[in-house]
């Protein structure tokens, strides 16, 4: 039946006896934007991997335009007109845009002997013209902004004449403006009769661009809905299987200043940042991607070198500018990219947690394993690590649990200042609220907390005060009722035309 351009029927796959997806049906209509929703672990990635030919399903079938497809490898998917754009963009940074577009199947001349760069350039220009004419096909792709790199991937898919494009968390590295651009692009693709599978956690985006949604939970399909018939709550309830209550913000801020930053600078990335954080206070830092928020945190944590300014913790200046000094002063960072800068994936939970505190667990040069184990157990119980296994290799844990271990690292080190960079990135809704509770608990214990986040609801929910950054500078401080999406956007974006 050609009502659907793609039908996945009864797809099941298990990994080592654990079912990742069970009997999932998933169908997409031509020219529609179909959201694939589910918590981490619900089976979205597995389903996409099967669709794009990366993994073979144990059972079930895939039909494109009514024909059964033998999905043997990614090439089969490509031939069937299915393209996949991953969250972590898959390109070769040193090669040009055109080279990346033709990666794996270059246009050739002289019967395949030489690469036909001219032809590649021409075709690239033709396709990019529809998407973003400002991209130069000869530019090394690493010089492009992430949003443009993403457009190149879409271009690559169109080159293959893909009729079904799956996008996995497409906006994790985009600004709100760039998302608007992407939304327009998606409209254009729809009018070309291309179907899109949109995988995202961001409800506001899904409600903006998607027509229908399929919801997965624990490997099973629990609903196929029309977006216009649903609200955020109804979808989240289906995703999680239970109601998530909205919590009110409670401030634990005291009057005692713990962290004091003065004129902190790093070339153009961070310029003259001056602010203070009190014990029990949660200071949110908002701003667009590239406004210097992450850089600011890394400066405070001693990871990057400053070019000017001072940092004081409880009145004592942090003299030497490196990670050890910062940690000794009681400052620790929970980084944005857990995989790259957070966890040491082959090591156990307890070791990842104990790293900054090694000196504490050492006597006569040797590690006191019993003390280390006990501390790890105590801290991770407190942070509700479930299942509570401190010997487990951290790489096997879910994103939310990994985040708890990294937070636990600084709890065990008795930190006074906790810096969070996108604390719930890549963490599903169920675990998100646990992280918020943790942050609130730390505030209750009198810690000074700084949170950088690109998710407006998140910043608004947990912050006592919000600083807005723009192009490396702090442009505004918002308090209490002034903390709204409009105000944050106002001071974060360059050209502001809206009135208060």
């Amino acid at each position, binding site marked *: 039946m050609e009502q659907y351009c793609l039908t996945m029927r009864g797809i099941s796959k298990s990994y080592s006896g654990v079912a990742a997806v069970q009997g999932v049906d998933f169908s997409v209509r031509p020219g529609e934007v179909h959201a694939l929703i589910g918590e981490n672990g619900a089976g979205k990635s597995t389903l996409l991997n099967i669709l794009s030919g990366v993994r073979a399903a144990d059972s079930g079938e895939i039909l494109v335009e009514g024909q059964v497809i033998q999905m043997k490898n990614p090439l089969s998917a490509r031939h069937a007109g299915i393209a996949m754009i991953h969250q972590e963009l898959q390109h070769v940074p040193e090669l040009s845009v055109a080279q990346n577009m033709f990666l794996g199947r270059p246009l050739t001349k002289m019967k395949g002997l030489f690469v036909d760069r001219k032809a590649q350039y021409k075709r690239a220009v033709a396709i990019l013209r529809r998407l973003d004419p400002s991209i130069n096909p000869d530019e090394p792709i690493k010089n492009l902004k992430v949003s443009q790199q993403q457009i190149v991937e879409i271009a690559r898919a169109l080159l293959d004449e893909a009729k079904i494009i799956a996008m996995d968390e497409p906006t994790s590295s985009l600004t709100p403006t760039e998302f608007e651009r992407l939304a327009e692009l998606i409209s254009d693709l729809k009018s070309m009769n291309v179907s899109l599978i949109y995988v995202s956690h961001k409800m506001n985006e899904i409600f903006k661009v998607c027509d229908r949604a399929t919801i997965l939970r624990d490997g099973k399909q629990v609903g196929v809905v029309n977006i216009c018939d649903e609200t955020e709550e109804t979808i989240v309830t289906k995703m999680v299987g239970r109601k998530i209550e909205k919590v009110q913000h409670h401030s634990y801020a005291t009057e005692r200043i713990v962290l004091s930053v003065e004129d902190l600078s790093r070339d153009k990335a961070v310029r003259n940042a001056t602010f203070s954080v009190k014990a029990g206070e949660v200071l949110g830092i908002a701003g667009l991607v590239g406004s210097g928020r992450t850089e600011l945190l890394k400066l405070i944590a001693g990871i990057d070198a400053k070019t000017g300014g001072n940092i004081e913790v409880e009145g004592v200046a942090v003299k030497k500018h490196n990670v050890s000094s910062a940690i000794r002063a009681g400052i620790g960072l929970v*980084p944005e990219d857990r995989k790259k*800068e957070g966890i040491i994936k082959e090591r156990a939970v307890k070791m990842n947690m104990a790293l900054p505190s090694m000196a504490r667990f050492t006597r006569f040069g040797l590690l006191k394993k019993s003390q280390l184990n006990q501390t790890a157990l105590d801290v991770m119980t407190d942070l509700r690590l479930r299942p509570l296994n401190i010997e487990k290799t951290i790489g096997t844990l879910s994103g939310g649990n990994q985040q708890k271990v990294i937070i636990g690292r600084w709890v065990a080190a008795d930190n006074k200042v906790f810096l969070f960079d996108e604390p719930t990135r890549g963490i599903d809704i169920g675990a998100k609220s646990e992280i918020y509770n943790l942050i609130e608990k730390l505030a209750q214990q009198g810690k000074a907390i700084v949170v950088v986040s690109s998710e407006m609801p998140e910043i608004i929910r947990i912050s006592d005060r919000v600083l807005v950054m723009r192009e490396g500078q702090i442009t505004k401080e918002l308090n209490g009722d002034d903390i709204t999406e409009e105000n944050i956007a106002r001071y974060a974006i360059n050209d502001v035309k809206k009135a208060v």
Partner: protein
Amino acid sequence: MTTQGNVQPKAFPLALFKFNVRDAGTLIGLLIIVITFSFLSPVFFTLPNLLNILQQSSINGIIALGMTLVIISGGIDLSVGPTAALSAVLGATLMVAGVPVPLAIMATLGVGALCGVFSGMLVAYAGLQPFIVTLGGLSLFRALALIFTNGNPIFGIPMEFRTVINSTVFGVPAPIVIVIAIAAILWVVMNKTPLGEYILAVGGNEEAARVAGVPVKRTKVTVFVISGVLASLASLILIGRLGAAEPTMGNLWELDAIAAAAIGGASLMGGKGSVIGTLIGAVILGSLRNGLTLLNIQAFYQLLATGLIIIIAMLIDRATRGK
């Protein structure tokens, strides 16, 4: 409050040592080789020959142990051979000049340490690639050794020193005792000290280690110093046995060391490796050479066998790890 279920996956406590599955596998590989040669040659499985194997493997063993730590930290040390040569010729010169042997030994180890500091600082502080730095060190140290000795060997290593190296402890030759002692020390370092955790962290994910407060630079310099010192220690054993120090000694030593470490489970990507595994790996290489020699097989084929063993070990590794 008790810890749940499984202790570090794939481990079963065994008295003092924690054997993991990978080490057990390497051991099985060794047993297969030993059993095979025992059948093929009547001389193989005799006490003198077995001690011979261990003794022949001891020099590579010591260097491989240092190399293992460097590899686990995510680096590599290609300069171990020339480090040994440079240390040896300087130490021998001192001994021959009448400097008390203990002092000369300290000086020799000191040279090894300095070579390690050199490589380590360039890697840690200048941010250069270990492969390139130690490749440069390889030529540099070799040149220094040759220049210092004018290309000539140094004869006349004092008898007192030689006797110690050639002595036995309860019938076990000194070099073997030394290797085992070093292995024990390094095992403790890797498993029971913060430095061991730091080495694993830096090799596993350097950026994450940095953010977590691991003294990355200090750790990197330390492993290179350890490698340098162990290289010079190995050189002492060799000159003790030969009675002379040649500036050309240590040629290709790095390859055997890396082979032993790799067979023993060290991953050249960093973050993984085993002290015990490296020891077994060194003995595997030694047994192979010994066995083939007993069977009168030409040296060229021994080289072939060594190469094959390394590749087979890696294939088995890949098949069993299932990554």
